């Protein structure tokens, strides 16, 4: 019966490319105008071919390029014949709708790259300066100003410091209300500035404070916020290309905020390089004030304790762990691990073997029956890597193994391994760090 029909342009249907869907949360289903997509329990789409009109909307939104339009071989043949004619029509489709034009006009009102300068008790977070570094590149590409936003109590000095790191303008709100960080006054202050001066990009550190603030600001401004970016660049239509890890670091995603401004992003400390400081640079300070009084703010900070001095060791929460096992040979040898940990700003953990031998207290034990840890850096010294230990530390970002036995299972999970005697290698590591720091004249790790 198909033979009798006149030749019609084959439409094909959408189809899932096996293995590519990442179960992003049903973007395709949400995009489909015809309800032609159902999701299975794995979070993957099932295309209902009889409903699909091959509008390609799902293809466009799929971040994993997991969907394609499928044609049968016969259909493909007809398609090839029609291709030539189709080309002409394609140009027409480029036409812009009125709606989109209005949107673009609105987005044009926003200009400039802003970096929020985070501080606690007047002490700036270094990530802010790192952001000025990358912000300068973005501003240059866009041909706009790089501005810092300084909010606090007696923090004018930070404006000058931000100039030294590359800002040319600084928006300052200086008021005792901002002595302690509290979400409400801070986000209101920022929203006030943004609404008044309309930046197109706003960067913040992905610190505890930064994440707390950015989430509130973005929601208030009803704009997009991309968390924990590891890469920032400018793409077409002046859009900020924000690259970030997701799915526990298993994938990287590039994220765009196309329809709203400012485009907000947070960046983790130490991800971006620190720009060179030039104290001779000057800039313009724009003083602003917001009508927020202490009485209006119900949240009170009652007490602030600096835990860094309290000496309380929590392996589970540490960012750097230097762990020792039976291969440390004796209790005394754990002091060399402590020295290395001190240089790295970390803590000393251990395997069950070391607890067993009475070298370390049980609270420091990492593994199945001890603590589960996810530090940025885990250095396993003289630990064989029995499964009971591995499951407690496998999710660390970077694992370093130091062991005499090349065949120890710990090397299977390690990103970097050194086959050698811990008692020689560990002091060599500590010395190397000290040596390099002495050369640089720096004091060492800062949180």
């Amino acid at each position, binding site marked *: 019966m198909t033979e009798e029909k006149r030749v019609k342009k084959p439409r094909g249907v959408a189809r899932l490319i096996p293995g590519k869907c990442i179960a992003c949360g049903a973007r395709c289903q949400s995009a489909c105008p015809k309800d032609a997509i159902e999701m299975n329990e794995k979070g993957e789409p099932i295309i209902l071919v009889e409903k699909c009109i091959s509008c390609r909307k799902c293809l466009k939104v799929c971040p994993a390029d997991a969907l394609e339009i499928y044609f049968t071989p016969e259909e493909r043949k007809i398609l090839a014949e029609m291709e030539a004619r189709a080309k002409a029509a394609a140009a027409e489709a480029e036409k812009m709708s009125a709606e989109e034009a209005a949107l673009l006009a609105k987005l044009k009102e926003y200009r400039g790259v802003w970096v929020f300068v985070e501080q606690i008790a007047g002490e700036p977070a270094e990530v802010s300066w790192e952001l000025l570094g990358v912000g300068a590149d973005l501003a240059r590409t866009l041909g706009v100003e790089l501005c810092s936003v300084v909010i606090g109590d007696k923090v004018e000095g930070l404006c000058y410091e931000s100039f030294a790191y590359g800002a040319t303008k600084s928006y300052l709100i200086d008021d005792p209300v901002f002595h302690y960080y509290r979400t409400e006054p801070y986000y209101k202050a920022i929203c006030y500035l943004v609404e008044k001066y309309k930046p197109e990009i706003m960067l913040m550190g992905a610190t505890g404070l930064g994440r707390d603030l950015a989430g509130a600001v973005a929601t208030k401004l009803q704009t997009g916020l991309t968390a924990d970016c590891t890469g920032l660049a400018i793409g077409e239509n002046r859009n900020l290309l924000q690259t970030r890890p997701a799915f526990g670091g298993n994938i990287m995603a590039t994220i765009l905020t196309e329809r709203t401004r400012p485009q907000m992003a947070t960046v983790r400390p130490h991800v971006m390089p620190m720009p060179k400081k030039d104290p001779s640079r000057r800039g313009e300070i724009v003083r602003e004030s917001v009508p927020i009084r202490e009485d209006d703010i119900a949240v009170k900070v009652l007490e602030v304790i600096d835990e860094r001095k309290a000496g309380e060791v929590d392996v589970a929460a540490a960012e750097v762990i230097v762990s020792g096992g*039976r291969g440390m040979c004796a209790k005394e040898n754990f002091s060399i691990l402590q020295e290395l940990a001190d240089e790295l700003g970390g803590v000393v953990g251990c395997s069950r*073997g070391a607890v067993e*031998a009475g070298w370390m207290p*049980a609270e420091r034990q990492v593994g*199945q*029956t001890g603590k589960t840890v996810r530090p940025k850096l885990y250095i396993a010294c003289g630990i064989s890597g*029995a499964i009971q230990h591995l*499951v407690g530390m496998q999710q660390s970002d970077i694992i370093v193994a130091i062991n005499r036995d090349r065949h120890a299972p710990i090397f299977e999970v390690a990103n970097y391994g050194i086959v050698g005697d811990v008692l020689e290698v560990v002091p060599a590591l500590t010395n190397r760090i000290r040596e390099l720091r002495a050369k640089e004249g720096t004091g060492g790790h800062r949180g």
Partner: protein
Amino acid sequence: MSSNAIIFAIVFLAAMALFAWSSFRRFRLVALGRPEDRFSDLLKRLGGMLVYAFAQRRVLSRPFGLNHFVLFWCFLILFLANTEFLFGGLFPDYVSLSRLPDGAYHTLAFIFDVVSALALLAVVVAFIRRAAFASPHIGGLSRDAVTILSLVAILMIAFFGLHGGKIALGSEPAAYMPVSGFVAGAFFSGASAGSLAGYINFFWWLHAIVLLGFLNYLPYSKHMHILTAVPNCFFRNLSRVKILPREEFKKGNTFGVGQVNEFTWKGLFDSYSCTECGRCSDACPATFTGKPLDPRLVIHDIKMNLLKNGPLIARKKTPVLPLIGDDKEGSIAEEVLWECTTCGACVEVCPVFIEHFPRIIDMRRYLVEMHAKFPEELLTLFDNMEQRSNPWGIAPAERVKWAVDIEVKPFEADKTEYLFFVGCAGAFDARTRRTTVALAQILEASGVSWGILGRDELCCGDSLRRLGNEFVFDNMARENIKLFADRGIKKVITQCPHCYSTLKNDYRQYGAELEVIHHSELIAHLIQEGRLKLDGAGDLGRVVFHDSCYLGRHNMIYEAPRKVITSATGQEPTEMARHHAKSFCCGAGGGRMWMEEPIGKHINVARVEEALEKDPETICVCCPYCMIMFEDGLKDKGVTEKVKVLDLAEVAARALK
């Protein structure tokens, strides 16, 4: 009826009534327990009763067992004598041995006399043993022991006093009662007839009072076992593997045992039958290494709890003493319940077939299922099992990592004969993966048709079941059985005794009839059939073999692994001090693998030390958990350079031609 007989009749009836009352009060409490069928297979039960209760097989296998055997039989024989005595007292004119034909009368008199002497001797031996050679767990000369032994001794002395007197008086023939005859000669030779009658009267009453007193003392002492031991042997669990019944997960049900009447009646009857011999305590790895768990005390506490709470429960009142919780007598501390490795050594040695660890698991079920109370470390285990179907929470994709260097085929229904159930340790643990590879090589070399489930394999759930997390186990078991059925799997090879026992025994409760083979059996079989040729794995030095609890005691596989070692190395393995059914646990079973061991010596270290006594170069094991435990123990002892641990499959693979 003489006035004497009337007085005695009153005393007798009062004593019997009291005895009946005490016994009723105790045994009625047993009826509070849940129902359980222990009446199947009567012939087998009777047979066992003869062998174990009357022939005292388990008792005899231990030092001083003979003494108990003697006492037991003396008691049985003297039971006749005492019946005659009591009825003779009631009806002196009608009941008397002397009314029997002479031949029978003389024989019986002789037997009773000699047996009484034997009994007295046995009592003396028992006294000496308790005073001088008491094992640490039976408490030496306890008050209960002194009381009972003294009563028996007095009974015997009264017997001789009575019959000695009678002989001296001439009312009984001396010739057939050598011991009493001797007593007559030694003590009563010069006495007048009048004073002899007085003596006889005195000893008669002494005998009567002590006998009735003894009877009434029984229900209140550990010697209740005189009444319960024989039936307990009759009602024993006939299956080798002591697995608990499934639970029905229905709303409104309670799970596990949190109150004493939630045990089955047999669980309660067990507690009445304990002889407090301490055999279980001697065998228990937890007790041995200084932990608070003592299986004898668990049973004792159940009994004490029943005696205290039972009457209240019978009257529908709230019990006063928690079964789980306190450290007091009659209450079992939570920590104690978590120390058991379910090794089964206690059940193995108990002369009256008490089942200790199943009761422990009953109570674990209660803690886990009703209150979600368990040692902290287990939370990770439980979550990993439920979410990822393996104890470590590793991604299923890694289940095939062991096979990177060799070619492995998936199991295909109708094409593949055996499923090689690799097991979680076999798939994830770097050390055990070497065993897995070795076994794969053996299977290849002998042309066995085998395949794996790869990433679809699930954990068998052994640890969960032993830890009392029956709910999650139940789900896992049903999932596994469905998987096996869907894939058409009928024959399974395991390298882990825990997988083995679970698939074979526990899953049977779910109707799965799998043919499960442990690799030790399979390799032995392949060698025997000539399909596997081994050629001397000569470099292993002296090999000691460790019997895994779940292979040996629980499943009676003792010889297969030994045969394999002999074939592979050309020499028989060396035995440790405790081996075969008496083997000592490595410390990992019963879910102990996933817990810390803060109290006492580590069980694995104790076992490693025992192995080291034999000065081995190789310790051969048959279980991934044993492997981990032994390797850890050797590291603790710092002798990893000298001694290595190998799995049986590795030993065999080394000898592959």
